[in-house]
């Protein structure tokens, strides 16, 4: 590709592959921070992104948690939305006509409360046609059933991935829970069960309390922490998982600029996703793409894939 503003002969390759899916650049958006794409279409050109990743969808509509659902904390945000959503049919009716018209792939984040439900949702989206990839949400901390219970149990994790693998050839991305002692065996389990890529990471279980009322600041009491405050811990997880698996990793957790994204790539990420920053600075994904390109030109890197995993951990 020949990006805008590049001098003759100075082309850099930004494209990466997630399974058999080719992305024009490695920058996508994190599920739950970008709605269904259409909401941001007035503010930015979605066709510049690597991919659009939609909010988690299960078979039936989901009402979500009571309010307050989010609370701002130092350099971050705790949320407990509860995966409110329109269900598979509602999504297809309301949002798919817009998304299928995009030039960039749509990645559908799916979840369920049973292994069978994950597989059924996967089957439905496989049958829909035109979907770029499926992201298996096995790591939402804010729902009683489903979500993180699958991502923190090796056996259940393998079952979910294998069950989805059976019903679709779409690239499968497993969105990993950070809430494990060691991520390596979970990464390996997802890879062995047929996952084409890993998304690392989801939010960290967290809590905030109002000292005057002595009440939790979230109706759900606890929630998931995201934003710049989680970046260093997410980078460590990516680094550990990258040593354990061969499949590509999509790094995410507090990315605000290209430097943050490049850090994730150095740790081992093939692609990255901008999450919480979308809420306050919607141009961030596009700025990250431009910044990665600039970095590559400055450092004489021709192919973005050269950055992946190139952290120098050995002292010379």
């Amino acid at each position: 590709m020949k990006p805008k503003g590049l001098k003759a002969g100075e082309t850099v390759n930004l494209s990466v592959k997630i399974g058999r899916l080719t992305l024009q650049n490695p920058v996508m958006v994190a599920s739950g921070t970008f709605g269904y794409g259409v909401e941001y279409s007035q503010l930015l050109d979605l066709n510049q992104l690597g991919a659009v990743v939609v909010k988690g969808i299960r078979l039936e509509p989901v009402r979500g948690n009571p309010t307050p659902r989010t609370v701002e904390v130092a350099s971050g945000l705790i949320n407990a939305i509860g995966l409110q959503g329109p269900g598979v049919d509602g999504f297809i009716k309301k949002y798919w006509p817009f998304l299928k018209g995009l030039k960039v792939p749509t990645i559908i984040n799916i979840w369920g409360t049973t292994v069978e439900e994950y597989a059924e949702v996967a089957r439905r989206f496989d049958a829909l046609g035109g979907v770029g990839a499926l992201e298996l949400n096995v790591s939402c901390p804010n729902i009683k059933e489903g979500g993180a219970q699958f991502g923190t149990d090796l056996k259940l994790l393998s079952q979910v991935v294998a069950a989805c693998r059976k019903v679709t050839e779409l690239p499968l991305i497993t969105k990993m829970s950070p809430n494990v002692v060691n991520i390596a065996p979970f990464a390996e389990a997802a890879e062995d069960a047929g996952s084409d890529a890993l998304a690392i990471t989801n939010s960290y279980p967290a809590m905030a309390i109002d000292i005057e009322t002595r009440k939790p600041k979230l109706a759900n009491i606890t929630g998931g922490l995201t934003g710049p405050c989680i970046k260093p811990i997410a980078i460590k997880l990516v680094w550990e998982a990258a040593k354990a698996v061969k499949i590509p990793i999509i790094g995410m957790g507090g990315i605000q600029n290209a430097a943050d994204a490049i850090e994730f790539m150095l740790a081992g990420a093939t692609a990255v996703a901008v999450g919480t920053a979308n809420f306050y600075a919607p141009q961030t994904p596009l700025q990250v793409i431009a910044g990665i390109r600039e970095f590559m030109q400055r450092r004489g890197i021709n192919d973005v894939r050269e950055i992946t995993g190139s952290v120098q951990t050995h002292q010379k």
Partner: protein
Amino acid sequence: MLEQTVQIVSNERDTDSYFRLVVRAPQIAPLIQPGQFAHVRVLPMKDALLRRPFSIFQVQNDTFSILYKTVGKGTEVLSRMRSGDELEVIAPLGHGFTIPKPDGETPLFVAGGYGMAAMYLLAQRSPQKGIVFVGGRKRVDILCEKEFQALGWDVRVTTEDGSHGEKGLVTQPLLAEVRSQKPEVRSQKLFACGPTGMLKAVGKIADELKIPAELSMDEHMCCGVGVCLTCVIPVKAGDGWEYQRTCTEGPVFDSRQIAWEVAK
């Protein structure tokens, strides 16, 4: 909606802890409808990242203004910003008020605290003059009284401590006014903006006396554009209810739509 960096024209104290902020935004200003809001990012805040939503107060030529109260860190930092400083703004956002018709129901506004500012543009663009009932805890909480009077509106003030206007709650003179008209000839419509307790009371009056009412709902907000699903309120749907976004489906809702039995 547009996302822009705008310059502060002025940012001055109104009364007590209330401030009036004017920004130059030539592309945004002409798009603004009564009841809509601006989502503002206060750049000097280092560890507080999120934007803050503010109802739009006035629109003049290429500027718009907001009237805000310093309630936390965000508004505190904002109140110290000066003419020439820059803010990041996404606006106009949300579904606003329906402008009254020249020959329609008499508009009765109900405002609590800085909710008054959010109704100014509606009064200005209303072809009919009406009554605005404004309430607050004390004298300093009664805002924009002169502006509404200058538009030819009848302003009825109540304060809880009786330091200005009638002593009591804003709903008392409102009820008296509504009841002064016989139900069979009654032709009034309520428009309200203020704290949730007040809105609930207005919704109840509207329901009991069968008067249409549009309420600007106040719920903690995060993204402002409909993706994060933070600012939801329960709204009637089918046989039950569902959560809808105050930033997108609202902030203004028909009071009959709201599922009050499950609302906070």
